C-alpha cells in the first residue's frame, strides 16, 4: 500500500497556500504509507540558462550537519561555478547558471553518498524516511509555494525502506512520478533501457516506470503518447501521478487495483488515493468529486 496526493491550483491567489493546503493531504495518507514521504513542487521556472538541483545529505557521513557551504566553496574552486545554496538540514537546493551535467558529475565523484533528488528549472524535490508528519515538519512543507505538486506516502513492498527508494522518483529534468502499486516487469523494462545508456540508482520498481516514461518524452513523444506506451509496456498494478513544469498527469492500470479520487473546483484540482485526504480542502462540498477510470489518461495543465 502507498498513498499519493497531487494538487494543482488554477486560482493564482492559491499559489502562496500550496503547501498549507497540501500538508493535511499528505498526513491524511499516513495509514496508507507510514514509512517514508516525499513531494515534488513545481515553481515558476528559472531562466533558460539556470538550473536547480535538489540534494539530500542524509546518507552522507555529515548527515543533517553536512557542510553545504563547503560544497559551494568546492564547486567554485574546482569548477569555477558560482552556486547559490539554500540548505535545510539534510536537504539543499543548489542553483547554478551553467549546464548541470558537469556539476552533477563532480558531485557524484567527490560526494558519492550525496543523493541528487532532482534537476530542472521548475522542480524542487524532498523525500525522506519517517511519517508524513515528520517529513512535512522536517522540510517545512506548509510554507511551500508554487503552481502544483506531487506527493507520496510510502508503505514499502518492492524494495527496502531508504530515503533514495522513497517517492517521488525523477529522471531527466523537471519530471517526477509517484506510484501506488507494484510492477511485475520492472527488470524487463530496466534491461530494455540500460543498453540505451539509461542508468538506474536503486532496485525500486517505480524507478523503472519513471525512467521509461521520461525516456519516451525525451525521444520526442508528447505526454499522451508516452503514457499510451506506458500502458503497453508497464505490467502490474499502478496508479501513477506525474508532474512536469506545467502539468499533472494521472493513469491507473486496467484493473484499477489501486485507488484514486479527484476533486475539482474552479480554484484547484486535487488528487488523492482516498477522499480522506481531500475532505479539508476549501469548498470541497461543492467540488466535482469523481473516480478516474482505469486505462484512461487524465492531464491537468497549470
Amino acid at each position, binding site marked *: 500500500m502507498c498513498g499519493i496526493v497531487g494538487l494543482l491550483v488554477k486560482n493564482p491567489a492559491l499559489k502562496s497556500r500550496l503547501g498549507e493546503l497540501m500538508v493535511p493531504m499528505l498526513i491524511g495518507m499516513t495509514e496508507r504509507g507510514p514509512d517514508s514521504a516525499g513531494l515534488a513542487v513545481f515553481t515558476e521556472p528559472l531562466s533558460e540558462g539556470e538550473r536547480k538541483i535538489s540534494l539530500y545529505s542524509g546518507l552522507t557521513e555529515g548527515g543533517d550537519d553536512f557542510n553545504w557551504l563547503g560544497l559551494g566553496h568546492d564547486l567554485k574552486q574546482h569548477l569555477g561555478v558560482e552556486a547559490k545554496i539554500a540548505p535545510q538540514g539534510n536537504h539543499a537546493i543548489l542553483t547554478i547558471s551553467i549546464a548541470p551535467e558537469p556539476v552533477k558529475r563532480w558531485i557524484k565523484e567527490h560526494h558519492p553518498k550525496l543523493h541528487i533528488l532532482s534537476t530542472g528549472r521548475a522542480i524542487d524535490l524532498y523525500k525522506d524516511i519517517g511519517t508524513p508528519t515528520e517529513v512535512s515538519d522536517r522540510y517545512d512543507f506548509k510554507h511551500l509555494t508554487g503552481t502544483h505538486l506531487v506527493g507520496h506516502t510510502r508503505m514499502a513492498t518492492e524494495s527496502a525502506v531508504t530515503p533514495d527508494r522513497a517517492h517521488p522518483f525523477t529522471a531527466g529534468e523537471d519530471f517526477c512520478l509517484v506510484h501506488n502499486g507494484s510492477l511485475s516487469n520492472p527488470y524487463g523494462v530496466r534491461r530494455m533501457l540500460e543498453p540505451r545508456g539509461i542508468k538506474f540508482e536503486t532496485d525500486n520498481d517505480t524507478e523503472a516506470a519513471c525512467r521509461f516514461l521520461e525516456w519516451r518524452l525525451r525521444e520526442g513523444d508528447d505526454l499522451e503518447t508516452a503514457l499510451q506506451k506506458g500502458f503497453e509496456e508497464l505490467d502490474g498494478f499502478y496508479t501513477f501521478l506525474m508532474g512536469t513544469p506545467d502539468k499533472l498527469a494521472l493513469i491507473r492500470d486496467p*484493473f*484499477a487495483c489501486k*485507488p484514486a479520487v479527484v476533486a475539482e473546483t474552479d480554484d484547484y484540482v486535487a488528487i488523492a488515493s*482516498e*477522499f*480522506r485526504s481531500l*475532505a479539508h480542502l476549501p469548498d470541497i462540498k461543492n467540488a466535482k*468529486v469523481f*473516480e478516474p*477510470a482505469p486505462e484512461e489518461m487524465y492531464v491537468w495543465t497549470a
Partner: protein
Amino acid sequence: MDGLSFDLNEIPLRAVNNFLHKEAPGQGVKKVTIANPDGAHNIAVGLDFPVDIEVVGHAGYYAGGMNKVANITVTGSAGTGVAENMMSGRVHVKGFASNGAGASMHGGLLVIDGDAGLRCGISLKGGDIVVGGSVGSFSAFMAQAGRMVICGDAGDALGDSLYEAVLYVKGKIKSLGADAQIEPMSDADLATVKQLLAAAGMKHDPKDFRRVASARSLYHWNADANQEY
C-alpha cells in the same frame, strides 16, 4: 430516544460504531445521522438492528459492510467495498461507489444511484444490487446467487464464471465474461426488474433490459476444452 446525530469531527468513529453495536439496539434508537464522514473507513459496519442511518457526505471503504436489517443511506459517494458481505437490510449510495461494491453480499438490497466501479457484485451470494449508472469491468465475477440490475453500461468481462446469479442490463455491455450469455427476458424476468427498480426508486422500462446468465458450461470439468474458454 428516536433520533440521534453524531459529528465525526467531534467523536471518533469507533465510539459511534460501538454505540450502534452495543447500546443503540436496546434503547429503541430509530434514526441516526452521521455528519462529516470525510472518507472514513468502516462507517456503520456490522449493524444488527432495525435503524435508519444517514451518512451525510462521502464514506470511505466498507461502509455498511456486513449489514443486517439496518437501512443505511450515504448521501455522497462510497469507497471500496460498500455493503460488502451484507446479510439483509438496505444500503443506498446516492453518489458513485468505488470498486467491489456489494462484494460477497448474501442478502438485502444495495442501491447505487451513480456509477459503480470495477468488480461490482463480485462473488455475489444472494440479495440484490441496483445500479442507476454504469458498472466497471469484471462485475458479477463468479456471482453465485442473487440479482443485479444495471441501468447504464457494463465494462469488460461482465458475469465471468457466473453461477446462478442473474444480471439485467439496460445499456451497452462492453464484453461478456467466460460462460456468461444473453438470454431472452421471460415474464418472470420483467416482473423481477420492475420490482427491483421500484424498490430502488428508479424509473426505467423493464422491457429495455437484457438478461445475462450462466451458460453453465464451466460447471463440470471438460478435459477436451484444452484450457480454451
